[in-house]
């Protein structure tokens, strides 16, 4: 049943040109960054650097592309998640889902899975694009894997937050702005509290938890952080929709 809701979401993304346009524009941005990074790699590494300071091509290009990707997702996810519930609220299509034999949790998780599935197309494409480096060099696939996993988990967290804000309002634009501000604030926490490793607020930062993935490290604490983050906001969304049913 979750799959059916997810399929419905994917269908409506691709029913209009929007889904395709977003995919192609984002891939254009990542492709350009990839090309630049490869050029830069030769420029930087060929110079006066001592051999000990040189980094591998995977890390150099990968960090540049995944860094851009995580930054762009900060804007792309709110724009994609904003419609999920607020648009249905505005066009009064929610009763269609509510009166079908599916639970609220299935509806919310279905929408979440649909959005994450759409975004993972991008992550797969980025992975495939970087894998082409293997034609000329012997690249570190482990590094690509951790980065993709980290990006996927982070995007899942973004999406859950976006869905929650989308369930609060009837106006998709407001949902997008709120999501963006909240994500940006969570990113910024690292700036203010990052110096002090004991600070609780600092460890709430999304960036900090992405950092370990970005350097090729899979840390179970970070995986748990992103999963808890997503589950928290999905639960809040279910509760918000349940309040609709109870309060009317």
């Amino acid at each position, binding site marked *: 049943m979750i799959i059916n809701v997810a399929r419905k979401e994917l269908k409506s993304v691709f029913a209009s040109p929007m889904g395709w346009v977003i995919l192609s524009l984002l891939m254009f941005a990542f492709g350009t960054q990839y090309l630049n990074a490869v050029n830069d790699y030769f420029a930087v590494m060929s110079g006066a650097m001592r051999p000990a300071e040189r980094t591998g091509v995977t890390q150099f290009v990968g960090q540049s592309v995944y860094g851009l990707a995580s930054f762009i997702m900060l804007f792309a996810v709110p724009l994609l998640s904003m419609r999920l519930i607020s648009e249905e609220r505005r066009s009064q299509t929610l009763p269609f889902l509510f*009166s079908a034999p599916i639970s609220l949790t299935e509806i919310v998780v279905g929408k979440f899975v649909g959005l994450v599935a759409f975004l993972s197309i991008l992550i797969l494409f980025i992975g495939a694009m970087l894998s082409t480096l293997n034609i000329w060099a012997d690249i570190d696939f482990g590094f690509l894997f951790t980065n993709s996993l980290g990006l996927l988990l982070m995007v899942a967290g973004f999406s859950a937050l976006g869905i929650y804000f989308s369930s609060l309002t009837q106006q998709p634009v407001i949902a997008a702005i709120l999501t963006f501000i909240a994500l940006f604030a969570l990113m910024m926490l690292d700036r203010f509290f990052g110096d002090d490793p004991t600070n609780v607020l600092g460890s709430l930062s999304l960036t900090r938890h992405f950092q370990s993935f970005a350097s090729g490290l899979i840390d179970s604490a970070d995986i748990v952080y992103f999963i808890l983050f997503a589950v928290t906001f999905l639960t809040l969304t279910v509760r918000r929709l349940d309040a609709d049913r109870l309060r*009317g």
Partner: protein
Amino acid sequence: MNNFTVEAIELTRLYGGREAVSNVNFTLSKGEVLGFLGPNGAGKSTTMKMLTGNLAPSHGSVKICGIDMIENPKEAKALIGYLPEMRPLYKELTVDEYLTMAARLHRVSAKHIKKAVENAKERCGLTHMSKRLIENLSNGYQQRVGIAQAIIHSPMVVILDEPTVGLDPIQIRDIRTLIREVGTDHSVIISTHILPEVEMVCDQVQIIDKGKLVFNGSIDVLKRQRVGNKLLIGLRNPPAIEEILRISGVSEAESLANGLIRVRYAENAEPAEAIVQAAVQQGWGLHQIAPDQTSLEDVFMQLTYQEQVAV
């Protein structure tokens, strides 16, 4: 086990202390069409939302084929097809895409989806619209898609909130036939404020006013209430009222502004023949005689008005 498809038990819904629906009880059996009547804001839609599990009742419960809506919402919802007042259509999809999705969400098995979609389209006269975007369909066709979505999984209970709003007369006729057709093997609940519609399609009628059920019974009861013991006669050379009163069985007579005479008679008396005979013998120039029916509107007004007086 009883055979009720829908049971509403003491349904009450409070909105911030104000009772939108209060203490509504009714049952519906298989193969019946129930008409829900009431003025604007009477609580028709609220009741329907509660029946379909879109709104939680403050007190009371709903059972669909014996399954409690609050305890087992998924099982109960699987037995319902619902068309809300605002059509829940995804306008960026085509009719086929939308109906396939609806079938899938209502647990129609993968093998039967295609057949279910074809069947629903055929019943609602949408076959030639399959590939059109819902956005580009006319209002009436969009309404048909809404109805198709509600009957696609052949549910036990079909609940339609004002299904004929915004349709042209031919479409209204088609939809009424469809409702009757669906009503033969399933139960149907429709809400409307078009009174003749109720008479045409419903077996059971409920009139709801200010959240309270003021009438609940079969349509025949309502029809009987309508007919009354009255005749309307038209005479070219009307005699004095007293002369008419002399005819046996006539209890009251009055001249109306439009030149006709309204005659009331006692229960069981049938003075029509006597009136005709008298008219012929005395040359009154009879040109019209017909039972005087109170319109359904009057009955409706009476019922909702009585309630106001009682309060």
